[in-house]
């Protein structure tokens, strides 16, 4: 196997007494799509800022393309495309002006950038908005432009911090489609997210983070297999009765989580389990059989849901 593009060992970042990132290790290989999944405050964005060679670390080692980002910031950043959590486009400038100016920061020639802009406008589906001021764009368009901007220098690695947070479902799907294309082109993607569906869609491999530490690592399907059952039966009995029937339910399955609004029952065969509950005359008000997701993995690992 070739050397990883990113190699992180014992990475720790403290802000005063608060430990934002607590000794994490991971590698990212060339062409891989790697995710950091965790709730807000898990230390994902802090890790990303360190990977982006803009923030310093308290201890540990980080190597990006064989270089320490803290010592060789500009050299490392020359190979990165960065899409921050909050769009930091220049709202007073137009779409193409934003792309052009950003390209100039990489010292790229006018000719190269002009050609690249056409390619990126098409990729971001913003051809018709090329001369529109950025402040007039929708949230989804701004997000696509920020991603396009990150690609202007043809980076080896694209870092995306919460790429679809704050977007409506349709805009999210358009964005996923764009990112999937990049993945197909062999661009190495590193992204953070607190949406398990996003992680499942986009990541070949991911780490689950909580309180600055890595709880588990693997492919989405591998993690589900390891930490959850094949199927999940979600039953609701009304908020008062959920707790009441819990002891009886727990006898029927391998594992169970009682959430305020519903009970999650982990099983290999959801329909059969539901049948069993009906026979016991427990009569849930609603029931749903679904496949296990990363949300269930997170719940298993931390006892909490991703979005609280």
């Amino acid at each position, binding site marked *: 196997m070739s050397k990883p593009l990113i190699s992180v060992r014992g990475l720790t970042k403290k802000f005063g007494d608060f430990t934002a990132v607590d000794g994490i290790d991971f590698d990212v290989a060339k062409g891989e799509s790697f995710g950091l999944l965790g709730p807000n405050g898990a230390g994902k964005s802090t890790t990303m800022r360190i990977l982006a060679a*803009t*923030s310093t670390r308290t201890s540990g080692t980080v190597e990006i393309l064989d270089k320490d980002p803290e010592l060789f910031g*500009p050299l490392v950043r020359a190979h990165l495309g*960065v899409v921050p959590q909050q769009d930091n486009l*220049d709202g007073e400038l137009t779409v193409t002006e934003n792309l052009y*100016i950003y390209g100039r920061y990489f010292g790229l020639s006018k000719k190269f950038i002009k050609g690249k802009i056409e390619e990126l406008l098409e990729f971001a589906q913003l051809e018709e908005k090329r001369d529109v001021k950025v402040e007039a764009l929708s949230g989804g368009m701004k997000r696509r432009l920020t991603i396009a901007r990150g690609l202007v220098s043809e980076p080896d690695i694209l870092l995306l911090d919460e790429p679809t947070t704050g977007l409506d479902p349709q805009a999210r799907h358009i964005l996923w489609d764009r990112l999937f294309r990049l993945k197909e082109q062999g661009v190495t993607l590193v992204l953070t997210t607190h949406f398990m569906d996003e992680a499942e869609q986009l990541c070949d491999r991911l780490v689950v983070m909580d309180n600055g530490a890595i709880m588990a690592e693997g492919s989405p399907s591998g993690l589900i297999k390891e930490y959850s059952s094949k199927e999940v039966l979600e039953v609701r009995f009304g908020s008062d009765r959920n707790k009441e029937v819990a002891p009886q339910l727990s006898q029927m399955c391998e594992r169970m989580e009682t959430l305020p609004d519903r009970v999650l029952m982990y099983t290999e065969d959801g329909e059969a389990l539901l049948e069993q509950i009906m026979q016991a005359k427990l009569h849930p008000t609603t029931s749903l059989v679904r496949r296990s997701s990363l949300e269930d993995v997170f719940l298993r690992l931390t006892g909490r849901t991703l979005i609280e």
Partner: protein
Amino acid sequence: MNAGIDVPQIQRFGALYIASARLKSMSKWKTIIAAVDVGNPLFYLIAVGIGIGVLVEQGSGTSGTNGIKYIAFIAPALLANTAITGIMDETVFPTIEGFKWRKLFFAQNSTPITGRQIAIGVYLAALCRAIFSVTVYYILLLAFDVVNFGISVLLMPIAVLGGGAFGALMLFAAAKIEKEDQFFNILGRLVIMPMFLFSGTFFPLSSMPIYLQPIGWISPLWHATELGREAAFDYGISSTMVIVHLAFLITMLVTGLTLATRQFEKRLAK
């Protein structure tokens, strides 16, 4: 990667890339900037030259101003003050915007550009604005026959130096503060206003009580004004004092810029 990124080139010219981006943003406001830079001197030259100046000269002739026409006496100060306010606008607002309002600096810093280059780029663009404002003002001074074309062109670089010294400190201050609303109140009312009034602008500093004179001593406006008067009218300042004025302004500029570049790097690396 085949885009042709030349990191050593960026390390040499990065500040200029930032400056040119700032100038591009400024150019979106060119009508307003031009209106301010032409309108402001016009108001002063009319109000002071025709109004207050006549009153002063009726009172004491030109004895209080070393024989210089009143409007000419205050012209170097007005010019330096224009450089100061111009450069302040183009350092304070872009810096707070860059760090806080729209976080543009974080976008710039995610390229090979460094915090130091961002600070210097913003500063250079602000200097361009000051040069523009001062040039417009100088042309109006000529048009109003306040100064004669000649050695008085020195008023322009002196004014820009005064503005540059103050602007360097403002660049640092704007990068340092986290809560900008009080900052604007303090800056406008407790720094800019007293500096404008007590820097020997409208009357020689020596005519003020001694306990008020230190305001002038630490004011870049006073140093630039004194230098300007000497350059344009042979005001009678000793060559030692000329050196003191120059040294003060250069020290302030270098110190401000050093502090600012450090603060930019520190805040971006948080």
